[in-house]
């Protein structure tokens, strides 16, 4: 009896917490397709707000994808070889390097953005291009790629595989492409999903680094929250959810698969 009571109490509490998180998201989705939110869903269901968002903000959505995939490309090219180097070399130097590239997770994005502005703000062409935002996203997401790949190296015995291939006469470059990368694939995939998800949603750095001509999706969101009617802001948020949820599901599936192995 007593256990039953405790169970019910905890269940109700947990349901309330879930409601706190889910109800506003639900409100936002319904507001995005409602003709008039003030009058409620009875006023009718429409896609006019989604269409309006597309007219106004399609450019921001496109630029966000360009930056996310460019960020992914840079973190792959720089992060995967670095993870391999840090793993094989080991020692205090590798630890210091890992510590330094992880710092952007501990320092607020606002501070990193100010640093970039003070250092490179006077290089007009660079400052005005989307590459300026790309640089911020690369710094912010790099640790996720490097650590995700290093986590795989810690479980697979890469060293033995690498030495085996070396004893058979394979060159370092060949071994990296044919032995290291295939073995690191689960970590690369997990890191890639994380990098793209984070880049698509990044605001703290991007707000400081953007210009009127280089607006990304979260910048557009903030803009619509401040100046558009609630239905348009909600429809825009709805588009963001639709973009981000498949990435989250893929991440979860990947984690489950790793868990089962």
């Amino acid at each position, binding site marked *: 009896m007593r256990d039953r009571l*405790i*169970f019910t109490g*905890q*269940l109700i509490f*947990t349901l309330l*917490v*879930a409601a*706190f*998180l889910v109800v*506003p*998201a639900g*409100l*936002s989705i319904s507001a995005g397709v409602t003709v008039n939110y*003030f009058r409620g869903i009875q006023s009718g269901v429409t896609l006019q707000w989604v269409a309006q968002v597309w007219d106004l903000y399609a450019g921001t959505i496109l630029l966000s994808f360009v930056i996310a995939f460019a960020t992914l490309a840079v973190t792959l090219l*720089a*992060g995967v*070889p*670095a993870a391999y*180097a*840090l793993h094989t*070399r080991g020692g205090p130097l590798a630890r210091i*390097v890992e510590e*330094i*590239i*992880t*710092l952007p*997770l*501990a*320092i*607020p*994005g*606002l*501070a*990193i953005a*100010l*640093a*970039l502005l*003070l*250092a490179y703000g006077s290089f007009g062409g660079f400052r005005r291009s989307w590459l300026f935002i790309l640089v911020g996203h*690369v*710094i912010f997401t790099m640790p996720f790629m*490097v*650590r995700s790949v290093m986590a795989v190296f810690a479980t697979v015995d890469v060293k033995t595989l690498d030495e085996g291939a*070396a004893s058979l006469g394979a060159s*370092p470059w060949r071994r990296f492409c044919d032995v290291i990368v295939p073995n690191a694939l689960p970590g690369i995939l997990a890191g890639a999903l994380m990098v793209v998800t984070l880049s698509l949603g*990044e*605001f*703290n750095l991007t*707000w*400081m680094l953007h210009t009127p001509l280089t607006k990304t999706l*979260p910048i557009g*969101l*903030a803009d619509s*929250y401040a100046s558009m009617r*609630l239905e348009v*802001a909600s429809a825009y*948020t709805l588009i963001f959810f639709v973009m981000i*949820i498949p*990435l*989250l599901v893929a991440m979860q599936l990947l984690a489950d698969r790793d868990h089962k192995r």
Partner: protein
Amino acid sequence: MSQKSFVWFCLLPLAVVTTAFFLLPMARLVVAGAEGPHGLAGYLAILTEGRYRATLINTVLLAAATTVVTLIVATIAGMFLQRHRFPGRAVLIAMLTFPLAFPGVVVGFMIILLAGRQGLIGDLSNRIFGEKFVFAYSIYGLFLGYLYFSIPRVILTIMAAVQKLDIGLEEAARSLGASPWAVQRDVVLPALAPAFVASGAIAFATAMGAFGTAFTLATNIDVLPMLIYTEFTLAANFATSAALSVGLGLITWLILALARTFSGSAVAAAG
């Protein structure tokens, strides 16, 4: 190419990117903080000048409140979800963790939908009490936003920690006559301490430095990131904003580093 030089070669792209776009700019930021009219003393302004000190205290209190409430809520819910199996459990966990990928701006909008001028809470309170409760644009709205942001992260850490608990210890305590409450207090909660420290530090550091939620809710909430932002963009006070952000970065980094030495696990803030 020898193996040794190949390893160095592998490290080169990362070293170039990190040096050019992180280490050099951060060094520039630290120098800029001392370039104001007061020189190095600009760094002390965060403590000596009344307005900045008040904002700092405000921010720390808000972050501390967020941390404590998040830990309590996430421990009750996380323990429950990890210890019981019932239909719908997976859906409930999914609901509690899906806001993980929401950026701060979106969290701010969620709070506006809950407690804003056209929000659900105002609507309900209007029907019940005949008065509209609107608090999204105040520090209470920001507090709610940080809870929204932190709860999913902390629940995941707590659930993982509860899973690793040795249930035999609790059974032993119970067989020795300890009441359920005493088991929780003396066995379960102490065993979860490292998870509390690790996830609490993340919640605290994130609440200290988060900018998106405060930016969406209002530009006049008195917290450190908003102060840095207004000093930089509106007052064009580069030296002060640089000194303040170096101070903020030091605080968040220090908290996470301390938590890491205590709990022994990787700890990082999120944005």
